């Protein structure tokens, strides 16, 4: 419909507590970044979910193409040696 009258979309990232990473938790509409931070506080931290909020304009995010999924991610399926657990450690390095 009248998309040009709609406020831009923002992605919201919330840090649950100090030391943890900001985690994506949803999106919202706001006219600018300052309003987006305030509304993110209202919508996504009402139940003590956060100690810090980031917002990013959704249009500023560049995502991988779903069509590339097979080429991008499937080749990793058979590369178990990329996991540390693949290797047997000598007893002398017990506590890694």
């Amino acid at each position, binding site marked *: 419909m009248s998309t040009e009258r709609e406020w831009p979309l923002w992605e919201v990232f919330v840090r649950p507590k100090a030391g943890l990473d900001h985690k994506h938790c949803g999106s919202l*509409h706001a006219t600018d970044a*300052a309003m987006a931070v305030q509304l993110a506080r209202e919508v996504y931290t009402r139940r003590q979910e956060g100690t810090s909020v980031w917002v990013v304009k959704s249009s500023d995010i560049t995502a991988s193409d779903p069509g590339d999924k097979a080429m991008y991610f499937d080749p990793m399926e058979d590369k178990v040696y990329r996991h540390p657990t693949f290797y047997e450690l000598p007893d002398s390095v017990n506590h890694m």
Partner: protein
Amino acid sequence: MTTSIALERTPRVQYLLRIADTCLIHAQRLAEWCGHGPVLEEDIALTNMALDLMGQTRALLTHAGRLDGNAFDEDQLAFLRDERDFFNLTLVEQPMRRSSAHAPGGDFADTVLRNFLLASWLQLLWQQLADSSDAEVAGIAAKALKEARYHQQHAGDWVQRLGDGTEESAARLRAALGRAWPYTQEMFEHDGVDEAAAASGLGPARQALREAWQQAVAEVFAAAGLALPAATPFVSTGTLGRHSEHMGFMLAEMQVLQRTHPGGRW
């Protein structure tokens, strides 16, 4: 149980009821936006603020009920008092949503502006109440202050956005200011209740807040392109228990459940 109750009119209890009732009636008006906000996000913001105010009300009413000695609880005080026994500022009874029941006036600009004028006042009040000689009041104030600070910022941002927005939004904001301003005189009135509170260290007399309030308001008004109106001779009397024509309708809606199903819980 359905009979109306009233607290003894001691200055101490009266002082607390003025603040508690102002928060309660303002919360009720804000809550009228629930499900009607201009956008979903702001709808949630308005009701979040209403809930903050409700929490402040509950704490103050409970405390006032204890001081009174009749052992009335918060629910009884909110739902069983008559109009003349409410002592909120007349400002907060005024309609602020165009389609709110029995109230043709008011729109989102009234909401934003009222919330800003009041949050600026409450912030200053809580700041001083945090040093109250009454430890319970000081505790309530310390918690409420954080909430009022946010309300002031959120509402202040909106005042700026509307004032500095389109011709239409600026005109609506100016009209809202014209409607609200005469009622702000009451925020700084002075009587025996104020005097007793200031003398006992319970809290500030209202007139002591005027200068700082005007300064805080003028700062945001400047950014919004609004001029601070001159003082008007009219002084409303809600804090004396004499209310505007809107109060009875509000209480009827607010109290009908407890009056019809006394003590009902859900």
